[in-house]
């Protein structure tokens, strides 16, 4: 959860931040507009040793590198209705389409292995695990992805995604990592299959001929995970560390572009103008670090100002810190409780609406030329 990143801001500063962010329009510390991302520079195909790789550097200097490696793996050996054809042999028809059915259900966890490396954090640290789970969850939720990995009924590709955060984690790295992963997958190519049918696969070793995992001509794109937060009624995208420190609620929303998705006959009518058809893959609540911020002391109960009352009444009353006070204007109080449903709905809506931020981000990423 985000609370792992520590912010040292005084209650006064927090109160100020919160106030300025809940203005309409909100005033962000770095002067961005609410749905504006940090400027970034990206490049792909930086590592010849991998099937696909990408590097993104945010303007604030945070930098991540993602490398994708693919290995051929026997399918079989799954506790599935179609374990009938274990070693790819003994093929019978309904085995095949059953398999299809099952893979459509979000596919096999084992086909994708995603690891996140954050300097200074153990790789089994719960925050890191949370990140990894979030990113892989988005990938797997899109059934089409796993179908891409199928070679034939006996064999499939296993993808290894290694995500490295190069810079020290200045802000919650989720957006950065997600964008980088997206690019890396876009640039990923798998060797062209030469064998046909269910025979053991062998491949064309001409790299130039290797097709992309996400073919260029199709509109399909890997998922991106956006970090959205709300302060008061304002919705703010790609929040910086300081902004997270006063967030009321933080959501991580994963969307993907599924223009070429067959199956449910819905997409035809509501294609929007640029033919992009967004799909909601996963939403997670991220624990806002604001809950762990130190509260301010309203002047009334500030003993330093001679109002000894608080001290005195507490005199012989253990637990009397519970003496509650109404929220005082300009005094920071760590938020309690959760978020109203309406707010959450608005967040998601803002992400998904046509021409919304998700659209913009995907456009921006398509602009990156894939070497």
């Amino acid at each position, binding site marked *: 959860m985000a609370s792992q990143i520590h912010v040292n801001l005084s209650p006064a500063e927090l109160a100020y931040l919160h106030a300025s962010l809940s203005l309409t329009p909100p005033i962000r510390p770095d002067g961005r507009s609410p749905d504006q991302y940090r400027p970034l520079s990206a490049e792909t195909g930086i590592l010849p*040793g991998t099937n696909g790789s990408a590097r993104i*550097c945010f303007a604030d200097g945070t930098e991540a590198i993602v490398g994708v*490696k693919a290995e051929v793996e026997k399918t079989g050996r799954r506790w599935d209705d179609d374990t009938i054809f274990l070693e790819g042999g003994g093929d019978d028809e309904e085995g095949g389409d059953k398999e299809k059915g099952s893979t459509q259900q979000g596919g096999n966890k084992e086909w994708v292995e995603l690891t996140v490396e954050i300097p200074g954090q153990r790789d089994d640290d719960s925050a890191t695990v949370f990140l990894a789970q979030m990113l892989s969850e988005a990938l797997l939720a899109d059934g089409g992805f796993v179908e891409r990995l199928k070679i034939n009924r006996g064999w499939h590709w296993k993808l290894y995604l290694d995500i*490295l955060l190069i810079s020290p984690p200045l802000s919650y790295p989720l957006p950065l990592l997600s964008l980088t992963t997206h690019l890396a997958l876009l640039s990923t190519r798998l060797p062209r299959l030469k064998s046909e049918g269910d025979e053991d696969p062998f491949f064309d070793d001409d790299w130039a001929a290797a097709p992309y995992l996400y073919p260029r001509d199709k509109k399909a794109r890997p998922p991106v995970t956006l970090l959205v937060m709300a302060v008061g009624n304002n919705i703010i995208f790609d929040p910086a560390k300081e902004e997270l420190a006063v967030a009321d609620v933080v959501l991580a929303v994963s969307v993907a572009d599924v223009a070429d998705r067959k199956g449910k006959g819905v997409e035809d009518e509501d294609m929007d103008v640029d033919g992009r058809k967004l799909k909601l893959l996963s939403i997670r609540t991220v624990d806002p670090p604001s809950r762990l911020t130190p509260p301010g002391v309203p002047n009334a109960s500030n003993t330093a100002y001679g109002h000894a009352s608080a001290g005195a009444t507490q005199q012989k009353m253990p637990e009397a810190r519970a003496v509650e006070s109404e929220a005082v204007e300009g005094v920071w109080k760590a938020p309690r409780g959760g978020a109203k449903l309406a707010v959450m709905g608005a967040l998601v809506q803002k992400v998904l609406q046509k021409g919304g931020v998700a659209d913009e981000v995907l456009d921006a990423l398509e602009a990156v030329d894939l070497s």
Partner: protein
Amino acid sequence: MPLDTSTYSLALLRVDGRRWNELRRLHAQIRTQAAADGSSYLEMGHTKVMCVVTGPSEPGPRRGGGIGGGAGGQSKDAEVVVNIVIAGFSSVDRKRRGRGDKRTQEMQSTVANALAASLHTHLFPHSQINVSLHVLSQDGSLLAALINAATLACVDAGIPMTDYVAACTAGSTSTYAANDESADPLLDLNHQEEQELPSLTVATLGDSDRVVVLVCESRVQISRLEGMLAVGVDGCKQVRELLDRVVREKGQRMILEGTVEKGTGLNDLD
């Protein structure tokens, strides 16, 4: 696959077409990253390493892989903490090694101690210098590359140091079993050669003959040590020159861009 050294004896050319005393292409950059105090990117052949230095700073909570000179920032010298991440995709066949991996830890402490020898840590008491290294691709001479990258990053970070710590590998043709004295020493081995031939990694301080790091992990006749060491040491001198050039060029550029004030006598330096 076994590397037939016979071809070498014929043409005196190595598998990748180098002579015995040739380095691979060494490409390096410094100040690759805005966020860090110091950063560098270094390629030796296909071995690619990134380095980020933060500090000298107040020692944070003890992190994993915290192996270094001082003792928990309590010492009167700055503690050099090195953290090496070997990316899963770096080697040809993907293998993932966790933080606990002993070999990585050994390299961490080696780099840390090598730097500590050259950096003026006594200038920063009770503080910590964090060096985090990322291995993006490996093709032999990994340790050497790590040391060089770390040195560059420290230069970029502006941490006072005695001199560059430059490293490279040296090997010897024909395996230890064949006890021929005619075996030639080799410079800067790649992965294939490292697998087949006896090799050692040597790092020297500046252009002196003084060895900071000497690591040999393969069986070799003691008689051959001298030859290999000699080649290695003078390889290090070449490497130092290259590193030095990188730094100077960057310096020049920064002056032209006006990012830094032009100091006096910088022209007579180069």
